[in-house]
């Protein structure tokens, strides 16, 4: 079943209610991906991915480049459809509600499922404080106490102590690692239920990487985290669950194996997983 993005996928009979404005905002959510496929301009790049991302847990997506990890991640918060010519099939449920169901709006979904990108991308024309509040401004929500929210979000992002005296400076004035933590704080400020992170540390130095890993562990109780990483040690350090993606030659990407991180790294059942996590990959 291929769904072009302009038309919505069939109704999900079990959960017809849109999650707009549900009281669960701010509570960690569970994501169930079922039979997810993805195409770019008619080329199948991701085939029948079934994956459950448990509530309040950190799930790591690992695998070589080009196997569709980013694509999968972007399908979870409806960023895939931003790319011209991109199509998808299957269903993605957030706490049982199909985010591609009828009546679901992409903007609403993205507010519940935040995303941090590979390259730090704070808004350069906004100050640090404005960056943190950007998500709320965009959705026209005004928080009860802005200063509290700024402090809370930056603290969660592990940046508060470094920037508390310079909140009025432009976001671009920070170092790369600080910028990335600002982006995490910005995503957390809208109180998402799931936070997707696409190689958030691959442009950063080891110290910044450690700080971000620390942040991930701290926020996991409040938000489900899905992180793509090329760093095996990082996957082991931060994640509870792990999914190994692989695209064999001229084949679309698939999930080869998924399970508890300990199992994937300790005793994987598939030889390809074993090879990859032990660095013996082709």
């Amino acid at each position, binding site marked *: 079943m291929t769904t072009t993005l302009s038309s919505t996928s069939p109704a999900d009979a079990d959960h017809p209610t849109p999650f707009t404005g549900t009281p669960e905002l701010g509570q960690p959510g569970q994501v169930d991906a079922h039979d997810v496929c993805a195409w770019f301009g008619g080329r199948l790049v991701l085939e029948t991915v079934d994956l459950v991302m448990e509530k309040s847990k950190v799930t790591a997506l690992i695998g070589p480049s080009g196997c569709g990890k980013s694509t999968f991640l972007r399908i979870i918060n409806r960023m895939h459809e931003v790319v011209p010519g991109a199509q998808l099939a299957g269903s993605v449920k957030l706490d049982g509600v199909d985010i591609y169901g009828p009546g679901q709006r992409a903007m609403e979904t993205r*507010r519940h499922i935040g*995303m941090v*990108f590979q390259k730090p*991308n704070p808004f350069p024309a906004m100050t640090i404080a404005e960056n943190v509040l950007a998500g709320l401004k965009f959705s026209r929500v005004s928080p009860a106490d802005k200063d509290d929210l700024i402090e809370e979000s930056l603290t969660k992002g592990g940046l508060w102590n470094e920037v508390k005296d310079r909140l009025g400076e432009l976001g*671009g004035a920070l170092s790369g690692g600080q910028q990335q933590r600002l982006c995490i704080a910005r995503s957390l400020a809208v109180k998402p239920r799931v936070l997707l992170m696409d190689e958030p540390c691959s442009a950063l130095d080891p110290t910044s990487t450690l700080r971000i890993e620390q942040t991930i562990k701290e926020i996991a109780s409040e938000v489900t985290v899905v992180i793509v990483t090329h760093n095996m040690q990082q996957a082991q350090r931060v994640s509870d669950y792990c999914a190994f993606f692989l695209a064999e030659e001229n084949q679309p990407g698939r999930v080869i194996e998924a399970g508890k991180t300990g199992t994937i790294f300790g005793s994987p059942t598939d030889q390809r997983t074993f090879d990859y996590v032990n660095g013996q990959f082709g």
Partner: protein
Amino acid sequence: MTPENTIRTAPHGILVETTSAPASTADGRQDPRPPEPTSPNTATPPTPTPRPRRLPSPIRPSAFGTQDAMILIMAAVSSLCLVWVVFYQLTSLSGGLGFLVCWYIGFVALTWIATAQVIERQVATDRAVAVVVVSAAMLIVAIVVFIVAWVAYKAIPSIHWGSLFTKDQKSFVVTDPNALDHVGVVHAVIGTLEQVLVAVLIGVPFAIATAVYLNEVKGWGVKTVRTVVTAMSGTPSVVAGIFIYSMLILTHVLTYSGFAASLALVVILLPSVTRVVEEVLRVVPSGLREASLALGAPEWRTVWSVVLPTARSGVVTAVLLGIARIVGETAPLLFTAFGSQVVNWRGYFNHDQGALPLVIFSDVRQAQPVLINLAFQAAFVLMSIVLVLFVLARIFSRPKGKNGKRMKPGPNDDDLMARLFVPIPIEQNEENR
């Protein structure tokens, strides 16, 4: 020859000294040098102050030395003598321009020959090309300076500051020897400001909206619109005037008026501002758009709150340059504003109106010296307006500093990113997926 030539201006032995710094301190034949800057974290602790180490004096191996300057001067002088002999002694040629061109060709050729003799041929070609490029740039600067200076020279001595900005041309009497006391260009200044202001108010929102459409919307229409805009920017401005004239004035929808002039100016303003704004928006990193969308922002929000603010200085610059472009347009005003001798504040929509370009156009062809002077004064005022606009554009295109204040132009001033945007220190290429 060998590559050593490129570092020949360095004092002998200094390259050795840079690698063995203590030796140079021992013999002490270097110039007095500034003390080594102490870094802030070594300044405070009670550690003994580091022994002031003498640094070797810095050199620039490829710097332009006395020898090179001498070659250029000698080439220039030799060429002058040579061409003089050929021109006036051997042949009986004449003419300043011909002399100048021959001198220049001789200068470049002699520079090449002399450098090839003294240094080597590779360097000689390099030098000769540098001479041509630099002199082309200098020629342009000279032309601009000359035009400005000429207009100022013609205008300033005759300006009566008391009347220029307070009087119009209605009380001009041909026989009055002090006519300049009674005439001015205030009617034209008012007309130009009204016409340009309304053109900008109408044109700029359309231009920005079109640029946003070209950049942020995907679909079949984009290519078509871009082609149309490009074609429109090639429209001769006189055609824009005819268009408004035949569409609106001949059909009696409008009379000759400032408003008709504004509409004609919009036709010229639209494509030029659209193209520049489009270029500016194109350079906004796509990661910012994605970040905004991923926060749940609608597309219009993304454009309004992220894309346009990021490119704000660039957009402002585009608008200012667009204004500078239309403020001196003459042809489209000829049959729209038509021109007038009197101040016309309120008749903007239904009366002939003056404009600075029209004053220049009509008065400079008159026989009375007073009117010719007035035309040059109008030209001077017009040039000053354009100059102010360009200065504003420069200031706005400067990157903003930490506190939101505009920084002094720095070494990266010519970097498009640095000039047109607030600083984005992390290099933002296209997302590589």
